[in-house]
């Protein structure tokens, strides 16, 4: 890990910084990081080096991109986007991460803030009891091995078929809640045994379930298309493929490390282990990753079902009156067709801590979002604003239909715990009217709003760039932290 100077970055426009070829040896294309001046101050040399590392991989097209929520990770930086030619390029678990299809969904209820204000504490306590949260938590749903097979094949559709949701939920998920190339046969027994008891669990770390209120509408026409208006109570759910996906990543990094040697691919970071997209090893990873992604969509679907049941019980809300605005993945690799030099090109697009932001008339959008572009859901940090945006043509042209995924950390967990206690954060948020519930105070300190960039500034950058455009701002009322 050699640290390079940030001074060699080239400012290309107010919001675009170039990592030039030569920043590290072997770069095939330049890198581009989208940043404002204020966000540039939080840029870490390690994250820039990771952008440069991605630019060395075979078959990368155009550029290695990083969104304004970029931060230092492993393999790709968090916020990294790169597309690889399907014939010449590679696929890498380092461009997806351990938490395959970590993602976020937004559920809109017919309630307003005044409807829930007197029961807010009861609401979050009930949700906390209903949705298993934190280390060691197990689902109360028994999933058999044949059911797990179907879960990995058909994702959210499996969950809805089991009674965990409405058929209309499916079309409001990216990829309709199931990647078609999933092959459960590519998923190890180890991964399955981790996935069996965890269906419908939230996990820990930065995963959360948050009750929010729509505070501001920026684009009334598209907000109407998305079915949200000022004052609406919504629930945002952020989690992924749990132990199943984590194990799939671990299994495949081992096999793709060997494959990289076999195909004589030089790696600047072992975590970028990879293989040609259509090699046996590449295909195997893709089909296992897709199966994990489908597990994640089913997982979020089950959690949303449990959430709806809680609202039905506490507020007598009709189950069918709570509609899923959309569900987006932000850790995934997908085979997509994008325009390259005026021609449609089959590419393997990696988004690691980045959200798909397909614009109007793109494939894979439901008919009701065809004119608006897809909803893009950007969670804030605990206690700060989250945003609803829409995908754009600019994103299709510039970033392979991608945008940011959240606020992005600026400070480590250990620093956070030394700076502030969980109790203090909880009390500070309570004074602001936000109730936080978590398995322990340490996890609250680690995810304190102080350790994140401003979500407002991150979305301002993507909005100004035009790679997604603001629709609505949501504010937290009560949060379950994993």
């Amino acid at each position, binding site marked *: *890990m050699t640290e390079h100077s940030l001074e060699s970055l080239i400012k290309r426009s107010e919001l675009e910084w170039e990592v030039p070829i030569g920043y590290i040896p072997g770069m095939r294309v330049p890198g581009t990081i989208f940043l404002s001046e204020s966000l540039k101050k939080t840029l*870490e040399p*390690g*994250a820039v080096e990771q952008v440069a590392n991605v630019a060395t991989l075979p078959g990368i097209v155009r550029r290695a991109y990083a969104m304004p929520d970029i*931060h*230092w*990770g*492993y*393999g790709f930086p*968090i916020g990294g986007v790169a597309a690889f030619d399907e014939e010449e390029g590679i696929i890498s678990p380092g461009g997806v*991460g*351990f*938490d395959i299809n970590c993602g976020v969904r937004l559920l809109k209820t017919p309630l307003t803030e005044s409807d829930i204000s007197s029961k807010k504490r009861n609401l979050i306590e009930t949700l906390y009891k209903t949705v298993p949260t*934190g*280390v*060691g938590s*197990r689902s109360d749903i028994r999933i058999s091995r044949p059911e797990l097979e179907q879960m990995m094949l058909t994702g959210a559709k499996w969950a809805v078929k089991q009674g965990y949701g409405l058929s209309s939920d499916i079309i409001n998920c990216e990829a309709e809640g199931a990647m078609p190339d999933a092959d459960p046969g590519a998923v190890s027994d*180890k991964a399955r*045994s*981790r996935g069996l008891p965890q269906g419908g669990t939230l*996990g*820990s*770390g930065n995963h959360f379930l948050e009750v929010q209120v729509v505070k501001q509408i920026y684009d009334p026409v598209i907000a109407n298309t998305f079915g949200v208006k000022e004052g609406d109570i919504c629930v945002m759910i952020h989690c992924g493929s749990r*132990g199943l996906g*984590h*194990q799939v*990543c*671990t299994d495949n*990094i*081992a096999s793709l*490390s060997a494959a990289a040697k076999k195909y004589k691919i030089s790696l600047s*970071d*072992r*975590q970028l*282990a990879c293989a040609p997209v259509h090699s046996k090893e590449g295909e195997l990873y893709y089909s296992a990753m897709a199966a994990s992604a489908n597990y994640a969509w089913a997982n979020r679907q089950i959690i949303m079902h449990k959430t709806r049941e809680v609202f039905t019980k506490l507020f007598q809300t009709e189950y069918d009156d709570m509609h899923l605005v959309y569900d987006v993945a932000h850790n995934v690799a997908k085979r997509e067709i994008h325009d390259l030099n005026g021609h449609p090109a089959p590419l393997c697009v990696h988004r690691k801590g980045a959200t798909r932001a397909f614009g109007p008339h793109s494939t894979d959008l439901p008919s009701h979002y065809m004119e608006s572009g897809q909803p893009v859901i950007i969670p804030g940090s605990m206690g700060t604003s989250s945003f609803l945006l829409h995908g754009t043509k600019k994103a299709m042209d510039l970033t392979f239909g991608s945008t940011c995924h959240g606020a992005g*950390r*600026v*400070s*480590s*967990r*250990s*620093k956070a715990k030394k700076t502030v206690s969980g109790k203090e954060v909880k009390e500070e948020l309570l004074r602001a009217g936000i109730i936080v519930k978590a*398995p*322990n105070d*340490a*996890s609250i300190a*680690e995810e304190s709003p102080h350790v994140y960039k401003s979500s407002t500034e991150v979305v301002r950058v993507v909005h100004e760039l035009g790679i997604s455009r603001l629709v609505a701002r949501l504010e937290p009322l009560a949060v379950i932290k*994993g």
Partner: protein
Amino acid sequence: MTIIELDHTADIRFRITAVNIHDLFKESAKALMCVMYSGQAGSQISRKFSIKAENLHELLSMFLSEILYLSDAENIVFSGFDISIDDTYTTLSADLSGDPFIRKNHGGGSEVKGISLYGLEIKDKDGMYIVDLLFDV
């Protein structure tokens, strides 16, 4: 032997220092359990496994990944790490002991999603073995 937490923005990074490779592996396993669980664990349960790798850093990564798998799949908090490593540093046998996870005793940690290979390199410096580990949380 020391376990020092280093700064890392997204994840958890440790520098482990030990006088020999065996201890380096044991301390690395303890660091992993420290992140995932709080409190003490006894030795009600034992689990054995063997692994074979191409080199030392791969052996360490596989060792920790196996512990992570067993812990997550079976809800076990491990506390004892009896290991033997062959002279070529490519084969390891482990005999682990621990307790079943009980939230009131062991809750309060963070799930570790995986053992990253980023920067994973075992160095021999002034008679001590040193490794930086990155756990995705």
